[in-house]
């Protein structure tokens, strides 16, 4: 069993599939870090359940990537044997959990995008394998969106302290939303939903939630990107070091 990093073929199709898989894995891993630390038992279960859904979605997409790539790479190879620069996830999903408000705002911003992305991909994808994954995932993402939206409303429309923290979280994470809407590579038209086409629906969902939460939408401004090109934050390096440590230190370990 190798411990050195794998080399992944670089095509627009693989970049797209691995980017989506990495989003799900990285966010799932971040949420799993709440296990044992969540503010209450019900929320602990909820975050762990959502993490499980996301990691399940990542597994399905990595398996598809392996099939497309045809080099014999497994789901685990993609998750554990790639370096930070080969991960193509959005910067938004790798942001550290912070306080509960940061976690919930991150969930709202991502779920309000990925829920319609899965739905449209399930309806329109020309790849039956991706459409099958999307049809399952969109049922899960609908629950994730509702869960996060209900919490954000409670935080924003709660106490002065919860409102202050929710507003601060929104300001902190807002510069990372622009990257979600990078248009689909033209050579992949028909494969999946074009993120650029989902902006209006995302705006409507987020505006409705913020309105009910009595939170102001941050001003549009400069947007940070780079995750899709493999340029990640320092915190991401720490996260994958922890995530990959066991697999790299004990190659082939099972339990």
């Amino acid at each position, binding site marked *: 069993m190798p411990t050195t990093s794998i080399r992944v073929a670089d095509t627009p199709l693989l970049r797209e599939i691995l980017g989506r898989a990495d989003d799900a894995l990285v966010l799932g891993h971040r949420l799993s870090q709440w296990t044992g630390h969540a503010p209450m038992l*019900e929320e602990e*279960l*909820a975050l762990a359940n959502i993490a499980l859904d996301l990691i399940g979605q990542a597994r399905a997409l990595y398996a598809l990537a392996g099939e497309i790539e045809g080099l014999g790479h497994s789901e685990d190879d993609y998750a554990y044997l790639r370096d930070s620069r080969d991960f193509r996830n959005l910067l938004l999903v790798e942001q550290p959990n912070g306080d509960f408000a940061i976690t919930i705002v991150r969930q709202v911003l991502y779920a309000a995008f990925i829920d319609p992305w899965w739905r449209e991909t399930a309806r329109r994808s020309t790849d039956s394998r991706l459409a*099958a994954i999307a049809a399952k*995932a969109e049922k899960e993402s609908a*629950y994730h969106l509702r869960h996060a939206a209900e919490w954000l409303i409670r935080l924003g429309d709660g106490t002065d302290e919860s409102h202050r923290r929710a507003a601060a979280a929104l300001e902190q994470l807002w510069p990372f939303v622009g990257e979600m809407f990078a248009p689909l590579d033209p050579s992949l038209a028909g494969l999946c939903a074009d993120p650029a086409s989902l902006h209006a629906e995302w705006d409507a969902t987020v505006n409705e939630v913020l309105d009910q939460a009595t939170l102001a939408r941050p001003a549009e401004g400069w947007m940070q990107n780079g995750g899709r090109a493999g340029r990640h934050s320092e915190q991401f390096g720490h996260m994958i070091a922890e995530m990959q440590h066991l697999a790299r230190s004990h190659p082939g370990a099972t339990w």
Partner: protein
Amino acid sequence: MVMTVMDHNNLRQRAWDAAAAVVDPEIPVLTIADLGVLRDVEVHDDGVTVAITPTYTGCPAMNMIAVEVETALARAGIANGRVRQVMSPAWTTDWMSEAGRRKLAEYGIAPPPKAGGRRALFGAGETVTCPRCGSSDTERISEFGSTACKSLRRCRSCAEPFDQFKCH
């Protein structure tokens, strides 16, 4: 050896019956046939393949169910029993059998509402009956429960908390 049509159908039925008796490891009153997780049995010249579908993409019970199906086939004297996972069509709680829904309620878990489909983001919640006292005056505590497929509720009439199988 060439199988006759009758041999073929007979083998398929035996394999189906063996697989259908496997229970969900997390809700042991339900079989995988009750849940609609068991999708198909294919007979080949050299064995059979049982198709199962996950309830949720990350359902940790799938690997265990696959092993139990292989064991059940071996116990039924069927050689070369294999299991494959299928994703499409996506599993829905509408596939749960009537017997399954009844068994769930008797076990203390409220069965999923029928043909629920997608709910609006802020739509009205569904009406769920308490499996203990039958009251429909119940409230949701959390949409995520002890397993991926269940949510947590509480009955306002008898004050008992209970699990509900989520509509999916």
